[in-house]
């Protein structure tokens, strides 16, 4: 009886708190911000982003912070945009969607005029609603969900999840004809199933395909390895930790000449503490827009600059950082294009006006030369956007490790 009464009270208390908090936030976000210009007192153009600086995904957020700051510093050192300087602000969302509302409000009310959205997808799904309501421009470096650019104001620098599926299937159709294909994916993860579904849809019907899947909290892949052990190419649209576990557990069982082929989630697989990628014989490669081991072109230049400015070991560079670097420069170049077309703006222009200016450029025939994507002969890639906000650029196949089977 006692317990029942206690839980009753607890439930009532929880409800009261929830309702109160809901009211406060509800009022805060429905206060009719649209016509307020929080940038009136700005002395620079403020670019903001929300991303994980602490917690399990911090390694991505920190790389974004460092790289975006690097780009901003470079631009400002060159004198900015005809004298207009830029400023970068980042708030920590710990990869938790619940913190996005407060982060967004803080940045906007602090004078943010242009945003890089969020670093990861789950918080991005919150951010896109707020930024759409207030008409704030978003160019996200790395929130790759297909729904992120749902509204007109949002664009992606990374490939959308299903885009990676299409690009991978194209690569398989062109390079792996006649091979037996295996897919190892995470069945309760949208990133993984999104890529896998699109991949299967686009893959030529002449392939024989074996599928095996796992779930969050699962790390014993023996049965999945049994299913896939005879495959010639194993497609892994997953993050690097479970991928490394599969490779490690399967090193004696999976065909020694097999090819492990992943997407951008595999970036970093050669830098896991305790996992020696050379202890397996199979080839490991992935399709991505950035190779953090690049030695030529604009990408290599950027990597050198990053490593000169930051501690490589504690805050390593990854594709998230490269994309953020490109985002800042893309916004800078787009503003230049707008200016040349006669658009007027200053450090006190409102976020909403900036959004209209930038959306027009990005949805138009704007082509940006970046460090992410396969480079052309001048060392830079060519990046453009569809009107829906998806990115167009050539992916690079990056071989992390060659096959070493005899």
């Amino acid at each position: 009886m006692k317990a029942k009464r206690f839980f009753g009270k607890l439930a009532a208390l929880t409800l009261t708190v929830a309702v109160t908090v809901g009211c406060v936030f509800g009022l805060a976000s429905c206060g009719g911000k649209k016509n307020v210009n929080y940038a009136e007192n700005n002395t620079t153009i403020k670019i903001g982003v929300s991303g994980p600086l602490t917690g399990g995904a911090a390694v991505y957020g920190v790389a974004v912070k460092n790289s975006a700051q690097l780009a901003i510093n470079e631009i400002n050192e060159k004198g900015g945009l005809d004298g207009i300087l830029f400023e970068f602000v980042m708030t920590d969302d710990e990869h938790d969607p619940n913190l996005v509302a407060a982060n967004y409000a803080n940045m906007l009310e602090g004078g943010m005029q242009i945003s890089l959205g969020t670093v990861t997808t789950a918080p991005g799904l919150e951010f896109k609603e707020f930024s759409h309501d207030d008409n704030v421009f978003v160019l996200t470096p790395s929130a790759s969900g297909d729904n992120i650019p749902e509204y007109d104001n949002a664009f992606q620098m990374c490939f959308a999840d299903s885009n990676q599926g299409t690009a991978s299937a194209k690569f398989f159709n062109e390079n792996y004809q006649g091979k037996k294909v295996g897919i190892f994916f995470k069945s309760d993860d949208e990133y993984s199933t999104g890529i896998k579904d699109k991949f299967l849809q686009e893959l030529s019907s002449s392939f024989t395909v074996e599928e095996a899947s796992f779930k969050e909290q699962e790390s014993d892949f023996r049965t999945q390895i049994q299913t896939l052990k005879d495959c010639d190419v194993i497609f892994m649209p997953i993050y690097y930790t479970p991928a490394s576990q599969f490779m490690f557990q399967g090193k004696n069982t999976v065909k020694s000449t097999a090819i492990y082929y992943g997407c951008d989630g595999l970036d970093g697989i050669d830098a896991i503490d305790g996992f020696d990628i050379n202890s397996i014989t199979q080839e490991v490669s992935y399709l991505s827009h950035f190779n953090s081991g690049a030695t030529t072109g604009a990408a290599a230049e950027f990597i050198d600059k990053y490593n000169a400015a930051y501690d490589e070991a504690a805050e390593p560079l990854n594709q998230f950082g490269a994309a953020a670097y490109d985002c800042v420069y893309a916004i800078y170049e787009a503003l230049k294009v707008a200016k040349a077309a006669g658009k007027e703006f200053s450090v006190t222009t409102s976020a909403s006006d900036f959004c209209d200016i930038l959306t027009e450029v990005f949805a138009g025939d704007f082509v940006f030369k970046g460090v992410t994507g396969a480079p052309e002969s001048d060392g830079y890639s060519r990046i453009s956007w569809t009107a829906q906000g998806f990115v167009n650029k050539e992916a690079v196949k990056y071989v992390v490790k060659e096959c070493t089977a005899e």
Partner: protein
Amino acid sequence: MDFIITLVNGLSLGGVYAMIALGYTMVYGIAKLLNFAHGDVIMVSGYAILVFLSFDPILAIICATLFCMLLGIAMERVAYRPLRGASPLAVLITAIGVSYLLQSLAQIIFGAADRYVIVADLGSITLGEVKIDVGTIITLGASLVIMMALSLFVKFTRTGRAMVAVSEDRDAARLMGININRIITITFAIGSALAALAGLFSLFRVPTIMPTYGAMPGIKAFVAAVIGGIGSIPGAMLGGILLGVVECICNSTPLAPYTIAIEFAILIVILLVKPTGILGKKRREKV
């Protein structure tokens, strides 16, 4: 051939579950409390092995086992003994608290990311057409030996029989001169040592650990203990092996995405048909 491999895998996974389930079941049978932090002892064992591995693998295993035994004893002294006789709900919540405490401590000390712990590279052996990892065979063999030893210990030693006595009627046992506190301490020590070894064997299967990594095997072993009949040592073995085999067989069929659901469905069916579990004894309620 594939089926044989799946079966061997399942038996070896079942061996790991059974060892964890044994700890659950002994502690429940003797101290009458559900130690939800039991799964986290596996995690602690993994990190302890990681710390001591730089010296010597064998030493690491011994040190990790001793460390977990001490942890189990400390857990009982600090968290559970003061609550002996308190309402079961209070003890349950304390157990959940201990579990979170251990996970958070591990995260503060070792970080949230996965860590590789490679105890030894044992390779694999080929029997006819079947290729099996040595680690799998060791796990299977060792878990069977340990379970038999435990059964013999409970049946034939003084301490073991005292345990059975405490489990059957605590007050009567005390009147017979059995030191209840000592027996419960020993139970926690044995349970934690089993969890430490289960941690070692799961490193043979999966060489990575993270702070929350004991949670899922812990829950599954609890399910195994309940399926087998909580409080029963052979029941825990049976439940663990059953669950391991079902899991591996399910994973090798198109039912793979529903493996966990199927495991819990088996629990529900067994509880409906036989509420005390397969080998559980029916207890007469005193009125």
